[in-house]
């Protein structure tokens, strides 16, 4: 909370962040539905997403960039 209040850099808008979280959750669910990841893996990814959404979104964005490159 204190870290968030004192952060002075560019800030992601809350709606944008919520949108990305919702999209990531949807991706996890669809991957599990398609049988690409197990229930445990889906659960683990959701835990990661909920525990630190910013870090999870950053990792996902980096993975997408890496794949594109």
């Amino acid at each position, binding site marked *: *909370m204190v870290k*968030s*209040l004192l952060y002075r850099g560019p800030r992601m*808008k*809350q*709606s*944008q*962040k*919520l*949108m990305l*979280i*919702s999209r*990531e*959750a*949807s991706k996890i*669910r669809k991957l*599990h*539905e398609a049988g690409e990841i197990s*229930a445990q893996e*889906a*659960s683990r990814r*959701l*835990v990661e*997403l*909920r*525990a630190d*959404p910013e870090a999870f979104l950053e990792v996902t964005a980096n993975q997408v960039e890496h794949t594109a490159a």
Partner: protein
Amino acid sequence: MRGCTSCAVRCRYKHRGIQLVQHTPFGKEILILMVNGAKDRFEKQKARWLAEEPSFINRCWDALCFYRYAFPWVQFSWYKLPYVLAQLGLAASGPAIAYHTADKLEKWHAIYIFLGVLVVLVLAAFLSGTPERRAGRISKPIQTIWVRFGNLLNTVKSGATPSAQKNPSIEFTLALATSLAAQVTGIKQSEFAASLVLYDGDERVRMKIDHRDRGSDRPIGRQINDLETVLGHHACQSGAAPRVVADVKRFGKYGLKSPTQSRPNYRSIFLHPVTSVQKGSVAGFMSVDCTVPHAFHGHRADDLAALLEPLKAHIEEMI
């Protein structure tokens, strides 16, 4: 500033938007200006809410309000009184004994020491509860429910659901949304309500509430013709991203005006626009509201956005 149209007296109030019609000794002027002020306040707060650029002071204020309402230990309880008195006694005992037994300790020094010890005790109590709160935030059963609920919904696609069963299916889903919100926030489930508000027609000038969470006694089937004061409508107009209303009281009189003409008792809202699978455009919004202000502050909104996703997907299949 404009003068009154009938008596040309310069008005003391700053006009906001609507022209003053008549200046009367019975306070009509003030009434008109109050209405204008409320509308102005609503518009200002709405623009600020949509822009999502709170100042540092606003962020601090939101955080303080969140702690005020989120933690029951801030509120008075007779059961907690002995604990509070014990902590005060503990903090005061050292300086009090030292003051009465040692001649060198001044009265103000003893008070400063007491306050210092008290601050340390309060901080220690807050920090010792942090790991427990963090562990409680992400519980294993909820993760499993989320995954299995996704599996379940995958087997109940819209094509397989008879049209007569679609409405009950949406109502049960909304009831589940209130349960998830209660789990995430730690607030009693009776304080939550969920509803699905959809556009009525392609013109997007009217909305209709046909679905509430199962068990809700709030009215359904009512049409909303004045969308200007419906925050969910503005959220839908600005995209498909979920939004949080920290406290509707902030929007003034117009914020507290219920679209269904019933007396609203909710203070905070989590709004999630829903997209029709068939049309591919935003069809309305799902709202989870709570009687407690700032109920969806910070990580609670993040959690809810993630956990509500399968429910939202199911509703999008059903509408």
